[in-house]
């Protein structure tokens, strides 16, 4: 039997043959772009087809001296930290609610992810309509409840736009992560909870001493995924606000896009995207290292 298993698993030719299509695809559409963008950063490319001129690190030095770049970074920081915090806490809350025994919970658990299934453009149309200052139902409810004297311009006023777009993105992604957290909650042994209940542990104590330690690894993974996906989000912000009003929602991906496709500064945009990638790679590696170290100790 042992030789048979070896025969199955050790066929390097077949293994490489099967992985080849995706590997080649990834090399062309991810690794080549990464190398090309890194190279592009040292050249001055304004228009496609016009020969590029080598200009050394001056793209990079211009970027680091560009106040708009740093403002975009700051907005990305606010955007990402808020998104991660609310998505992780929100998904934990939603998962705890759906982990209770109630009728129809299998159906609800499967369909709660629906906001994530909606195409981004539908998400944008939906919330632009709901939050519209004149016809929007939210402003109608706020006004008839006497909460605001005049309609709030959620997506077009400088102080409301960022919280609003964050809220919309959190609304969309919370169910997605809640599904994952929910599955983790179900791995908690029933006997453990019952024993704690017999010992008279309060709900809060049970949550703190049993639930949280059990799902902590999953929460860490969710936090990392939420971080990586939030910081890279382009579509949702762009379709809702185009980075406006007055750049108030211009996060780093939006700023890079504008530099490339509105100002036609391809090299600068490429250099910025490489900086962003290196930051994300460093962050992910450092995060996973700490995670594994903690896992090894605990």
């Amino acid at each position: 039997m042992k030789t048979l298993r070896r025969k199955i698993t050790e066929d390097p030719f077949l293994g490489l043959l099967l992985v080849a299509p995706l590997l080649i695809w990834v090399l062309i559409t991810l690794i080549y772009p990464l190398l090309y963008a890194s190279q592009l950063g040292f050249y001055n490319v304004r228009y496609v087809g016009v020969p590029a001129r080598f200009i050394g690190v001056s793209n990079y030095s211009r970027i680091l001296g560009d106040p708009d770049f740093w403002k975009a970074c700051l907005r990305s920081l606010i955007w990402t930290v808020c998104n991660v915090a609310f998505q992780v806490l929100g998904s934990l809350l939603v998962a705890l609610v759906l982990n209770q025994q109630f009728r129809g919970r299998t159906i609800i658990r499967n369909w709660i992810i629906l906001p994530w299934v909606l195409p981004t453009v539908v998400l944008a149309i939906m919330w632009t309509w709901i939050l519209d200052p004149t016809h929007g139902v939210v402003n109608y409810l706020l006004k008839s409840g006497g909460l605001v004297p005049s309609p709030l311009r959620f997506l077009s006023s400088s102080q409301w736009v960022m919280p609003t777009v964050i809220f919309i993105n959190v609304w969309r992604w919370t169910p997605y992560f809640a599904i994952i957290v929910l599955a983790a909650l179900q791995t908690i042994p029933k006997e453990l909870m019952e024993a704690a209940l017999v010992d008279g542990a309060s709900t809060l104590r049970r949550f703190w001493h049993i639930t949280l330690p059990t799902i902590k690894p999953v929460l860490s993974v969710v936090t990392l995924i939420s971080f990586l996906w939030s910081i890279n989000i382009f579509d949702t912000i762009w379709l809702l606000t185009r980075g406006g009003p007055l750049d108030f929602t211009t996060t780093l991906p939006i700023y890079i896009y504008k530099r490339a496709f509105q100002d036609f500064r391809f090299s600068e945009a490429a250099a910025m995207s490489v900086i962003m990638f290196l930051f994300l790679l460093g962050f992910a590696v450092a995060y996973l290292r700490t995670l594994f170290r903690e896992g090894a100790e605990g």
Partner: protein
Amino acid sequence: MKHLKPIAKYLSVIAVISFFAAPMYWVFICSFKPTPELLSLKPTFVPHSFTLEHYRRLFKQVDFLRYYYNSFLVASSTALITALAATFAAYSVYRCRYPGRRFMFRLFLVSYIFPKILVLIPLYILFARLGILDSPLALVAAHVTLTAPFSVWILRAFFESVPREVEEAALVDGATRIQIIFRIFIPLAAPGVAAVGINAFLMSWSEYLFASTLVISDQFKTLPVGMAYFLQQYAIEWGIMMAGSVLIALPPIIGFAIAGKYFIQGLTAGSIK
């Protein structure tokens, strides 16, 4: 105190459901309201009258069917290629032994981190040089990049659930490796392959950044790009937008109804391990 508990339980469940369902319910009913009721300053929470006028106007004023066709073409091609490439790659990474296997897996995992915008600029220039910019082909190529590496990860739990003994038995009976993959392995891991296909379809159907830059001419535009244009108009035709939203959301919802269970299985199994 004791009888308060079930009430609190159901209240919390209802609150969660309403929070996520209410906005979708709102758009759905608004798409059937006649314009005066739709734009009335006192919105009606249960529609007073019913009309299909917005759906009629959507097909008359927007080239909706063409966008729909384009999106369908791109999304199903992406789903098909992703399912095939990811299944082969996953079989290789999880079931074969060869030098560099771990590196492969890590490479696919790193694709998580790539900012879409980083990939976009070089791909845009590359496709322009290859002369395939502004074609559905360029879009499919870019979308597979977004979906396939992640799919290898989703497939992990499904592939590991297929017992090795099944494969070994088939090998004893004289089946070739390729036969084993197609006749035994893929049918057993079918839910996973379905989940991966549906996920790729959803991503591609919804994707905007690549779709709006790699495709320029109107005849190849996909739904998100076609509809986003109308969102930017000074006077938004809300009725048409509501009807369009319902129709754009429909295929993903149907797809999810069919294979959503497996997608959730793959998603949760992959993360918890």
